[in-house]
Structures are given as structure tokens and as C-alpha cells.
């Protein structure tokens, strides 16, 4: 799993992850709603750049995040130029790119285990409707561990079908993959039960 986390000790790194997530989503919405004119776009861009600087991330990190969303830029800009004025098209695209780059700042300054812990804490009100926060953590953990296992199943099915001379595609590929994945799920349930965890 590629972790995009950049270690650091800045104020952004040290904020509690739950609070930080709410803050980032709130800020994104503010930018999405209020930014229309070129001047406002410039102000928002300055704000985002200040955020990167506060996190100890330089121009290189900012550039690589903008490059990461280059296809969003293309797919947004082309239809916008067809239907809207050039100035509107550019400022609309810039606004969305700013929001995406700001979201990347959140991802880069927050460790995934901390967020999973926060998710478990955030799930505690669900206890009232009969869902235990531990099962939420178990669900997220099981999903992460199952990804490489199921990716391995996909490779196995592809190889097995190639060996039998079947071109691996569509239904003949998906059905064995689904069966292996669901059997894996049932085996996992046995293992969780056998470990004496009631979730």
C-alpha cells in the first residue's frame, strides 16, 4: 500500500485527526461556495500555499500534487471551454484544483492508523443502534488485509484460465474470483470466531 504520508512535526501534523478532517472539509466547502472571481481564486490559492508552508511542505510537494490531478484539469477544462467563457472556465478549473490540492495536504499530514483509531472513536455513538465500534475497526482492518489476498486470487484465476487456453474475460473470470473471495470471507469468519472475538 502506498502511503503518501510525509512525516513532520508541524501544527498540521499535530492536530487531532478527526478535528482536522472536519476542518479540511469545512474549508473546502467555503472555497467551493465563495470563490468565483479571479481575485477570490488568487486569495484561495494564497491560503492553500500558506497551508503547505505551515506544514513544512515546499513548492515541490505542491507541484507534484497539482501534477497528480492533471487529468482532472484536462477533463474539466475542455468541456468548460466549449460551453463557457475562457475566464470562467479557467477560474472554475482552478477552484476545483485548489480544493483537491488542499485535500492532499490533509492526506499528507495524517497517518492512516491515527485516522482508523479516530474512525473507531467516531463510531462509538453507533453503539446505541446496536453496532459495536470494535466491529467497525474490525471491518476496516479486514478490508485492508483482504485487498492483497483478493488481488492474489485475481492473478491465480487469470493464470489458471490462461493455462487452460481460455482467454480470461468477463463472466468466466469474475465468477471464480467471486467464489474465492466469498469463501475467503467465510474462512476469515471462522478465524475471527476461533479467536474468541465477538463482534
Amino acid at each position, binding site marked *: *500500500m502506498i502511503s503518501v504520508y510525509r512525516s513532520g512535526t508541524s501544527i498540521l501534523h499535530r492536530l487531532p485527526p478527526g478535528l482536522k478532517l472536519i476542518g479540511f472539509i469545512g474549508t473546502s466547502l467555503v472555497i467551493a461556495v465563495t470563490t468565483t472571481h479571479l481575485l477570490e481564486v488568487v486569495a484561495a490559492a494564497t491560503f492553500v500555499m500558506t497551508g503547505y508552508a505551515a506544514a513544512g511542505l515546499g513548492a515541490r510537494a505542491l507541484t507534484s500534487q497539482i501534477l497528480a490531478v492533471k487529468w482532472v484539469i484536462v477533463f474539466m477544462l475542455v468541456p468548460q471551454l466549449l460551453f463557457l467563457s475562457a475566464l470562467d472556465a479557467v477560474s472554475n478549473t482552478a477552484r476545483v484544483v485548489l480544493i483537491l490540492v488542499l485535500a492532499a495536504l490533509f492526506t499528507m499530514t495524517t497517518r492512516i492508523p491515527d485516522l482508523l483509531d479516530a474512525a473507531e472513536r467516531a463510531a462509538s455513538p453507533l453503539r446505541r443502534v446496536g453496532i459495536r465500534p*470494535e466491529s467497525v475497526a*474490525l471491518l476496516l*482492518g*479486514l478490508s*485492508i*488485509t483482504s485487498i*492483497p*489476498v483478493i488481488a*492474489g486470487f485475481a492473478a491465480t484465476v487469470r493464470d489458471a484460465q490462461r493455462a487452460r487456453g481460455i482467454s480470461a474475460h468477463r463472466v468466466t473470470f469474475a465468477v471464480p474470483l467471486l467464489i474465492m473471495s466469498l469463501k*475467503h470471507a467465510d*474462512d*476469515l469468519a*471462522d*478465524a*475471527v*470466531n*476461533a*479467536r*474468541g*472475538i*465477538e463482534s
Partner: protein
Amino acid sequence: MNPDRLISFRGVSVDFDSRTALEDVSVLLDQRRIAVIGSNGSGKSTFARLLNGLASASDGEVRVHGIDPLRQGRLLRRRVGFIFSNPDSQIVMPTVAEDIAFSLRGRGLSRTEIDERVSRMIDTYGLADHADGPAHSLSGGQKQLLALSSVLVSEPELIVADEPTALLDAANTRRISNHLLDDMHQQLVLVTHDLGLARRCDVALRFDHGRLVACGDPDTVIADYERSHA
């Protein structure tokens, strides 16, 4: 008989999907290492799964160290650890340390005690270099060692291992089986097709078509089994 290690089956049958998986099994066991052998579909896995409540008896009575699996399932699962063939289906948390710690959830242990127990396991089973790494990047043998650590960390009294070496190469089979048969002090029920491992146990049970057909000295039981397939 040693009451702390007593496993008793009295007239136990298991029906599943209108098929009898196990029929009228009665046996008393208190040995440290118990081997279970038999061909595929003979009922040996069902026998193993009864021991920690993964399967339940349709008829008869099972007692494991005095515990009734039907009424005290939760307690039983805490006392009995289970190891499966495929380590991939036993790893439930993303990193090695998290997976071992998962077994200690909900047992009222303090954070420091959990950490201490987990690091002891990681050291014992040579997983220290991978403690905070993703569990699925381990080799097959290391994954099975992780599965074993995740079971042993909760200090069960009995380990049930259902073909734990089936997917391992010779070197890893030796590592895992040495841990189970020699290093561990807990009682062990080992379901295996590897007759070499079964020979190292103190007693062997042989199942055939859902019935217990032999129970006794491993060399005798295995010789008889090999003759029946000659």
C-alpha cells in the same frame, strides 16, 4: 487421567446438510500431543472444529477441559486456540503487531500489558523486523508463525491445528511443527496428512467415513492406516 487436559466425547454425532459428518464418536483423551489422521472427508476436521465450538454436536456430549461447548462457547474459545491451513485467512488486521494485539481485545487488559505481550510474541517467533510492517508482505512460513503467535498470545490451554503445514514448504513445515510439537507446553490436537508429524505425537486417532476407527499408539495406528491403503 489428567483432569486439566481431559477431552471427552460421548456418543457424538454431527449432521450437516442432511449428511452425517461424524457418527457416534466416544473417546477420552488427556495426552499432550494428539494426532488426528484419515482421508479427506473422513470427519477429522469436524472433530477438530467441535473442540472450539466452530461446529456443534447434533447428538451426544462434548467436554473440553470440563467446558460444555454448547453452553459456554465464549469461555471455550478463549481457552482453545485454532490454527487453519491457510495463513491468509487468519490474518485479520493490517500489521503484524495489530494482528497479534487483536486477539487480546475485550479482555480487560491494559494498553501496556497488551504491548508487552505482543512484543514478547514478536520476539519469540522472530517477527521483530516486521512488527509494524504489513502482515501480507510476510512469506508463507512467517505468516503461519504470525497466525501461531496471534493464537498463543491469548495463552490458551489447548491448541487445535487443522493441517497447519499443508501449504508450507519443507523448511517451514519443520519450523512450525517443532514449535507445536516440542517448544510449546500447551496441549495440542494436530489434524494432519503428514504421517511423519503424526508419529511424533503421544496418541493418534484415525477417522474413516465419519467414524473413529482407531485410537492408540501412533506407530500402530499409522501402520494400520498405511496397510489399508496399500
